[in-house]
């Protein structure tokens, strides 16, 4: 039987990534009246993600049987890369438009351009929730299969914990937005999301390396397992949120550096957010 700590850890880890994305997007969109329409797309995305999580989670055995190794890798890589791109797009959209007043935004951005961005919000929320959610569903459904089925105390404990932790992450983010200046909040959350996007990018290319679509070039450039083992509890968390790898292949390093160089370059090009909140 899984003990309380194990359940707590898994539920926290699974919900925090998705809630980080949803929570930050919510804070950004509600900061400014022009984002109000985007909020509807955000919640729509969350609902779509939940539906997707159930389908993927409950159908995990069917999926394992139906898809070949390559198909599975392409599907996962596609989701990961799409999420990474959407995050980067969102960050830069906010940098350009986050400060604009509603009327100003409606004048400068065509309806299509606005809507396009809102669909980006929808998609990002949906992918983030579906990805982590599907693993949570597999985890939860097996607890429910315990001796009492759905009456199993562990199932309800885990579900309750998940809801509380997700809610807490969300609330903490909104609180953070209120406690510090908008500029500081935006800077920190922007970095958090860009780190996450890097991690998703790394995971995506690793899926493709695995089915030999991409070359490692050098299998292992160094081994910093002694410093931080990415298989350990702390290490796997750092790995999920930043893209850290204890034994990186050369391709991992190339993509990592290229990603941050590209981000820096794009930041130079875009207008910086103004100090006025």
């Amino acid at each position: 039987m899984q003990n309380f700590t194990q359940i707590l850890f898994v539920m926290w880890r699974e919900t925090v990534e998705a809630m980080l994305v949803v929570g930050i997007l919510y804070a950004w969109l509600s900061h400014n009246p022009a984002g109000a329409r985007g909020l509807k797309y955000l919640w729509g995305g969350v609902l779509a993600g939940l539906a997707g999580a159930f389908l993927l989670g409950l159908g995990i055995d069917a999926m394992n049987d139906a898809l070949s190794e390559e198909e599975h890798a392409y599907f996962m890589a596609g989701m990961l890369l799409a999420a990474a791109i959407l995050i980067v797009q969102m960050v830069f959209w906010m940098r350009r438009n986050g400060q604009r007043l509603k009327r100003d935004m409606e004048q400068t951005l065509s309806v299509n351009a606005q809507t396009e961005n809102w669909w980006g919000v929808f998609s990002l929320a949906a992918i983030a929730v579906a990805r982590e959610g599907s693993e949570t569903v597999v985890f939860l459904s097996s607890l429910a299969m315990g001796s009492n089925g759905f009456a199993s105390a562990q199932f309800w404990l885990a579900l309750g914990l998940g809801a509380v932790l997700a809610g807490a992450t969300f609330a903490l983010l909104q609180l953070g937005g209120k406690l510090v200046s908008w500029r500081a909040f935006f800077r920190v959350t922007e970095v958090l999301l860009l780190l996450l996007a890097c991690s998703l990018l790394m995971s995506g290319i690793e899926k493709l390396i695995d089915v030999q679509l991409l070359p490692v070039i050098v299998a292992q450039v160094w081994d910093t397992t002694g410093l931080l083992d990415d298989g350990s509890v702390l290490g796997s968390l750092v790995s999920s949120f930043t893209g850290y790898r204890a034994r990186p292949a050369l391709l991992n390093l190339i993509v990592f550096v290229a990603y941050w160089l590209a981000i820096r370059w794009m930041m130079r090009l875009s207008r910086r957010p103004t100090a006025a909140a």
Partner: protein
Amino acid sequence: MFNKLAVCGAALLFAGAAFGGEDLLTFSLNCNNGVFAPKVLQVPAGKKFKLEIHNVGTEAIEFESKQLRKEKALSPGGKSFVVIYPLEPGEYKYFDDFHVSVGQGSIVAK
């Protein structure tokens, strides 16, 4: 009579080669609520192989290995496989992401 047998035999051989396909080396790994059996799996280096994972426990598991770049969730009783491409000689660690504290297993390629 002999000729007919020879032709049949040859046909069967060709059919076997065409449809039998490449026989992938297969290894089996059981996972019982985070405990892997065998804990250390010996495999030949430089050969592509199939790793069948069977969740024989009562809880969901997630076979994960950063080095092998694999992640696979399995519900109790679930069985699936991952294809591992030719490995350099060495030790490759894996763990159950749903039971992290239980410990790691490893695949040793020689």
